[in-house]
């Protein structure tokens, strides 16, 4: 059974997960668990809480049989969106100064270990590509995006932290996404 389902596309795997197929769920983890953990670690900054976030997020998919919505992008985008929400929920319960410190920490690749499968290699290459696009942003736009998305701060909090008007912060977020979009489109062209 496990060998058969490994040939299935993510969307088909999700259909089996929604029917309660534990092997399909395991395959979902094998394909996206690494990206989920990496995102959770980037947001909460510590191994234990990052593991808790991934476990809670993926179990919520399993137990509530959350319905995958194709209109919201790929299965990976959808899974990572759930992980992101869980991680930010956890972060918002932490003290602000802790959040800021951890948000500004840059994770390095010291946890990278083991053999690389083709899928793993592709995951890391994709990450480097997207990171490259992010690095083309003016630093103030990049900072606004990162504080919001990975730090879980509201635009008002970011404005206070950076001592800038809220309107300026709003503009940086919008312009930052606009530039990211252009970089990605051009990158694919």
């Amino acid at each position, binding site marked *: 059974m496990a060998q058969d389902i490994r040939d299935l596309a993510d969307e088909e795997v999700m259909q089996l997960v929604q029917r309660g197929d*534990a092997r399909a769920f*395991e395959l979902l*983890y*094998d394909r996206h*668990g*690494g*990206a989920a*953990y*990496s*995102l959770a*670690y*980037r947001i909460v900054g510590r*191994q*234990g809480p990052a*593991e808790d*976030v*991934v*476990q*809670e997020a*993926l*179990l*919520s998919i399993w*137990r509530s*049989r959350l319905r995958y919505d194709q209109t919201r*992008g790929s299965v990976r985008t959808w899974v*990572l*969106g759930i*992980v*992101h929400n869980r991680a930010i*929920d*956890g972060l918002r*319960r932490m003290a602000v100064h802790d959040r800021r410190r951890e948000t500004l920490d840059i*994770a*390095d*690749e010291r*946890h990278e270990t083991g053999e690389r499968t083709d899928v793993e290699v592709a995951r890391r290459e994709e*990450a480097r590509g*997207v*990171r490259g*696009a*992010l690095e083309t942003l003016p630093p103030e736009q990049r900072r606004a*995006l990162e504080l*919001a*998305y*990975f730090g879980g*701060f*509201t*635009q008002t909090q970011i404005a206070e932290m950076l001592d800038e008007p809220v309107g300026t*912060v*709003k*503009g*940086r*977020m*919008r*312009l930052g*996404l*606009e530039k*990211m*979009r252009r970089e*990605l489109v051009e990158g694919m062209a």
Partner: protein
Amino acid sequence: MSDHERHREDVGAYLLGALNDIDRRAFERHLRGCDECREEVARLRPAADVLPSSVVQLDPPPGLKARLMAEVEGDSNVTPLGRRRPPMRLVAVAAVLLVGLVVGVGVAQLGGDENRTVVATVDKAMPRAGGSLEIAGGRATLRLHDMPALGGGRVYQTWIQHGDRMVPAMTFEVGAGGRGRVPLPDVSDADGVYVTREPRGGAQVPSEQPIVSVPL
């Protein structure tokens, strides 16, 4: 600045989750009636959607998969609540758990004011845990033992089922020996008492299948 112009400025913050709840709801209300802003959200969303992929990619700790699959296999060994209870009750609970909506108005009038103790059913993933619901004079106390201490800012939360509704009740943590003693309001007209694990502060809708069940 018009209402539209003001909301249009929020598109980036909305996609990055940087609006507070009030602003987000206002933006989403505006979005429903504004084609231009909907298109702008759809146009910029892919840029926000790739942000998770920009992080340094790590290997998850090996124990994570084992723990996750142990929970999943445990769920598979325990018949889901909806299939184990009497059909009416199961449909009601499943509807609340899966859809998160309050549907129907049926309320089963069971029980009474007699004193009794009902043994709790506990998820098999916690083999040593157990407990009971003591009902006396219209008051009830849920007593549990050998419950795992929860980390990650989570607490246990009790729920009282009335027909199709799961009404949130007290949250609690367990002490020595995994013991918890939870006083509950009058359950004489309730259909069940349940426990789930929720973020600190509690939830309005259960986020998982109950791990402790006391159908009444």
